């Protein structure tokens, strides 16, 4: 029996259209918005920065950087990072290990405390230390008695930096270690490995890219921190200024070219950080 078949003509679908992607116009629009956003907040400022930095010529640029106060600011920034990052590394790994592998009372409190620096304004973070260690602070008289300087000195800067960069490594590792579970560590223990052996041979290699990522972020923030460090620093030229603080001083003196020249150091750090971050992200994706 013949059954008549009716063919209805549907709108022709453009070549390359798959069921799940947005129509071409929407894709172009979204990409365009993202590009405009990126340009406004990234490319334009960066271009402006480097243009202004070299405004008075390459000679002035290098002079601004080689200036003694600028150099000591660079040294202080490097020192601060060199102390805070390793300390936060040890702490972050320890906290992530405890949280991911064990159950203990106060676990959720610890997780909340780790997130604390993110929710507190950097200025407040710095203020806490002033209230604690400053001359009028709780421990002030005791510190003064023993001639220990924390506020308006390098120790205070390091402490404030440690506080604000606290969470980066821990937060990166906790979900990673939770996702990886305990099985491999248990297997290592049953096979006779001791605690440290298990950590270095089994756990660490598994978390190495997450750890690197956390360290990169931690370092970037440690070097670039302004608010908290500004409060505790005292802005003593040549002694308690980090690069961001030094940039502020130069800018306040209307020495724009020098300010941008020193700031370009941070901009270069930012670019290096971005590249390193992308490489590690790619490695993380590949290793999973």
């Amino acid at each position, binding site marked *: 029996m013949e059954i008549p078949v009716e063919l209805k003509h549907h709108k022709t679908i453009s070549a390359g259209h798959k069921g799940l992607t947005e129509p071409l116009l929407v894709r172009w629009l979204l990409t365009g918005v993202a590009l405009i956003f990126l340009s406004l907040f990234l490319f334009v400022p960066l271009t402006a920065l480097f243009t202004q930095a070299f405004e008075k010529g390459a000679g002035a640029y290098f002079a601004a950087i080689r200036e003694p106060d600028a150099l000591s600011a660079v040294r202080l920034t490097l020192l601060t990072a060199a102390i805070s990052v390793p300390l936060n590394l040890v702490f972050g790994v320890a906290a992530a290990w405890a949280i991911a592998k064990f159950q203990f009372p106060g676990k959720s409190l610890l997780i909340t405390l780790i997130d604390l620096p993110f929710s507190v304004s950097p200025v407040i973070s710095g203020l806490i230390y002033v209230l604690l260690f400053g001359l009028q602070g709780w421990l002030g008289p005791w510190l003064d008695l023993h001639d220990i300087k924390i506020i308006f000195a390098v120790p205070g800067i390091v402490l404030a930096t440690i506080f604000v960069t606290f969470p980066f490594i821990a937060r990166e590792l906790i979900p990673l270690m939770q996702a990886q579970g305990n*099985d*491999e560590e*248990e*297997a*290592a*223990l*049953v*096979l*006779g*490995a*001791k605690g440290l*052996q298990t950590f270095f*041979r*089994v756990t660490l*290699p*598994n978390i190495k890219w997450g750890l690197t990522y956390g360290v990169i972020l931690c370092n970037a923030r440690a070097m670039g921190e302004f608010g908290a460090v500004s409060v505790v620093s005292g802005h003593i030229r040549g002694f308690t200024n980090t690069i961001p603080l030094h940039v502020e001083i130069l800018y306040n003196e209307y020495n724009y070219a020098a300010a941008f020249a020193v700031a370009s150091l941070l901009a270069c750090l930012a670019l290096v950080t971005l590249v390193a971050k992308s490489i590690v992200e790619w490695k993380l994706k590949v290793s999973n």
Partner: protein
Amino acid sequence: MSIEIRSVSKLFATFNALIDVSLTVPSGELVALLGPSGSGKTTLLRIIAGLESPDLGSILFNGEEATNRHVRERQVGFVFQHYALFRHMTVFDNVAFGLNVRPRKFRPSKAEIREKVHGLLKLVQLDSLAGRYPAQLSGGQRQRVALARALAVEPQVLLLDEPFGALDAKVRVELRRWLRRLHDEIHVTSVFVTHDQDEALEVADRVVVMNEGRIEQVGTPEEVYDRPANPFVYNFLGNVNLFHGRVDKGEARIGDISINLPEFEETDAGPAVAYVRPYDIEINRLRHSPEEIEAQIRFIQGAGAVARLELERLDTLEMIEAEMTRERYRELGLVEGEKVFLRPRNMRVFLGDYNI
């Protein structure tokens, strides 16, 4: 090495994982801990390994108290359900791990380790893959690497936690037969956990049936299957049909069927249930005796070595499952909707009014 589990209990705030469990595993035996989820079998295994500790009771290895021994001092090998291979190490390094982490004094030389590892990999038929990483292996291959790794440290006891649970059906059957052969060769005391009764019955020397933290029955596969101690064991180890009735002073009346049961001589009148396996349901077209139950065939699954039928009793409207060989099925030429007569052979009667 023999294992003795003495009155072990593991109690949590919300539920009891193990309640007063006692078991002896003689040296060289292959024992299966069989039970549904939540029966406590994995908890018991992990307590034997030392990965968890009991709240009450003790564990003895070769008669020596081992409850407080740390896991790495127990000389046990553990195979995890999801392999737990070290993902960033090659197959070779995975198997060599236990030997590499030994203190310098007890560590064999590099050459000895290499020989041992290759020997084990040959045993599990993976020698050609020594340089691969776990991610490059199939599930069955990974599990064999895990087994080789556990055996590398020459454990006195081998513990396997649902070792074939994550593999597909064919691989599972192959590997469990392979495990049985391996055990016949090596004779290491082994305990493995499974929820698959076929696996337990096929592989183990003895089966320990567990439920809700307690041991229901311990015996050889034949014993637990043919002579189940209670309804739970009967039901867990295969399909079952229930026939309700009564027992009074040694006589059981199940419907129109009367059975003489000397073991219930002393029992006062009370409800009872008869358990019958599907292949013990005899089906006939014509009534042979007044005891037979009339039923209507509701569903036939004729494909495969065994034909399965679902029938509805005409008196109680309960569903009965029956099985018969292909030949018998062809012989009878049954079709769905037909009315037939059932006769249960070989009933096992339990007191009480159980409902599963």
